[in-house]
């Protein structure tokens, strides 16, 4: 006899959750923060935000920092839509977001495949969309804490340091741009990570793929551009597409000489294909025909 205690019934009432996906998100966030190297990587991701706050401070105390300026103006210290675009579509931020996806996103679905956990989830009153929302919310948390959250802090600091609302009067739409672009970025990373996490049962392979696809798309662009000199080849690069869309969102001149719509369509098409694949792949049973 192995029982240490007898069986007792639970006298509570099972309730219908308003957000059935929330326990999945909470658990996966907890598991992500428990990972050995994740916390330093996540903390390091806030480094650009810190520098940008310093830049806001300097922009308001520009007279005290004249010695740093040679000749003309220091563009970085001018807080305008371009400042936000530089932060939200910066190479370093994208790189850190990809790194976070490697640590916190790779195993989201892959581990459930590997350890046959899907039947356990779906034997609960949970729909496929609840499961996917729960997983996507983990990614959304990390992306939003590195995009919307610092960007809003920038605005608050700008207002505090300047002591006036001139900035908001000049750019009343800036908050919407920040939120809109951050949400777009979040959506992209959700599809990107969940799609790649569905590709393999081994989260290590998925980590490599997440990293490799992002870098490879950029390398491929550079390689082909040097050969063909065709600006439209930028559509291959994930980074350049996101930056192109950011230029539109913040009303800044785009780096590439083609409409942002093309980049938007490329990213949307990718998300569409990824979404279709994810939905087909997530099921409670492996049906072998």
């Amino acid at each position, binding site marked *: 006899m192995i029982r240490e205690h007898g069986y007792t019934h639970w006298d509570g009432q099972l309730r219908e959750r308003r957000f059935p996906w929330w326990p999945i998100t909470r658990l996966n966030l907890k598991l992500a923060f428990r990972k050995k190297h994740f916390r330093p990587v996540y903390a390091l991701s806030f480094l650009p935000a810190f520098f940008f706050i310093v830049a806001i401070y300097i922009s308001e105390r520009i007279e005290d920092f004249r010695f740093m300026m040679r000749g003309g103006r220091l563009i970085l210290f001018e807080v305008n839509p371009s400042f936000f675009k530089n932060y939200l579509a910066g190479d370093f931020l994208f790189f850190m977001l990809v790194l976070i996806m490697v640590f916190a996103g790779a195993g989201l679905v892959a581990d459930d495949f590997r350890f046959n956990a899907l039947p*356990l989830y779906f034997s609960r009153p949970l729909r496929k969309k609840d499961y996917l929302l729960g997983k996507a919310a983990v990614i959304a948390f990390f992306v939003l804490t590195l995009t919307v959250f610092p960007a809003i802090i920038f605005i608050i600091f700008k207002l505090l340091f300047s002591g006036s609302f001139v900035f908001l009067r000049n750019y009343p739409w800036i908050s919407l741009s920040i939120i809109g672009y951050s949400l777009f970025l979040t959506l992209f990373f959700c599809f990107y990570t969940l799609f790649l996490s569905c590709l393999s049962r081994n989260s290590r392979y998925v980590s490599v793929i997440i990293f490799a696809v992002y870098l490879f798309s950029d390398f491929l662009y550079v390689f082909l551009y040097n050969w063909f000199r065709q600006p439209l080849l930028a559509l291959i690069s994930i980074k350049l597409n996101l930056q192109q869309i950011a230029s539109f969102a913040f009303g800044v001149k785009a780096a590439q000489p083609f409409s942002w719509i093309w980049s938007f369509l490329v990213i949307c098409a990718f998300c569409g294909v990824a979404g279709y694949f994810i939905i087909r792949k997530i099921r409670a049973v492996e049906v072998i025909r």
Partner: protein
Amino acid sequence: MSLTVQNLHFSYGPIKALDDVSLSLEGGAAGLLGPNGAGKTTLIKILLGFLRPQKGEGRVLGYDIRSEQKKLRRLIGYMPEDDCFLPGMDAVTFTAFFGELAGMPKQEAMKRAHEVLFYVGLGEARYRLLDTYSAGMRQRLKLAQALVHDPKLLFLDEPTSNLDPQGRVEVLELIKDLANGKGIQILLSSHILSDIEMVCEDVVILNRGKVVAQGKIKDLKRMNFRLYELKIKGEREKWLDKLSQLGCLAEVTEDGLVKLYLPGEVEPKEIFKVAYQTGIQIRHFRQSQSSLEDFFAQVVGVD
């Protein structure tokens, strides 16, 4: 009635997994018995709503298996056949998590997780990482997660697979305890006859996607056949042919013992008559005690 299905059909492409399955089970513990590939797991997956039957209908605990899966799953506990867990977690967090997903409040789920882990014998190991659990411990953990929300009906799919004899007995004892007066109905799927015999009162036997028998085990054992063990001398093929024409089923063991299943209408003296006609000497003749295994062999086939 806790579980009824009618005319269920399900195919994986060209392979028929369930073919016109109809069954009805009352409370208590029932066994779903059948050889590998008989359709047991497919049936459980249909009852849980994981698979949609191509034809047929069914109700579990009064809920329609096609349209009321969400309500149904709140009342069901499921222990899958495969080894399944979430890496990097301890047993309490794991069990409480699935309690929460079932609709339990967080605190209650945690409290209940402790209780069920003690019940299944993992009390001392409840804070250990699941990655370090043995096969037997993982099996008990699967049972704990199925029990955490105090289900009314428990689907256990091959609960003793991959277990050593001691672990098997321990898990079966737990299931037997749950089946006795705890108010939990159990559907135990297994290809191991003794597991079903130990725990269940009722049994449904599936073979090649069809229900070949169902009822109380004790009644089925007394069914309309008798089992005889014989040792013979002579050319047995002709003798066996004639007996099979009478509706008898025969199984020849490695040591030459012939196990003969006689239908109710065939008298034992027919065996001697046929032996006389075919020139066979009967050297040993004994009526054997029929077990579920014998019945299973008869309905599933003794090939």
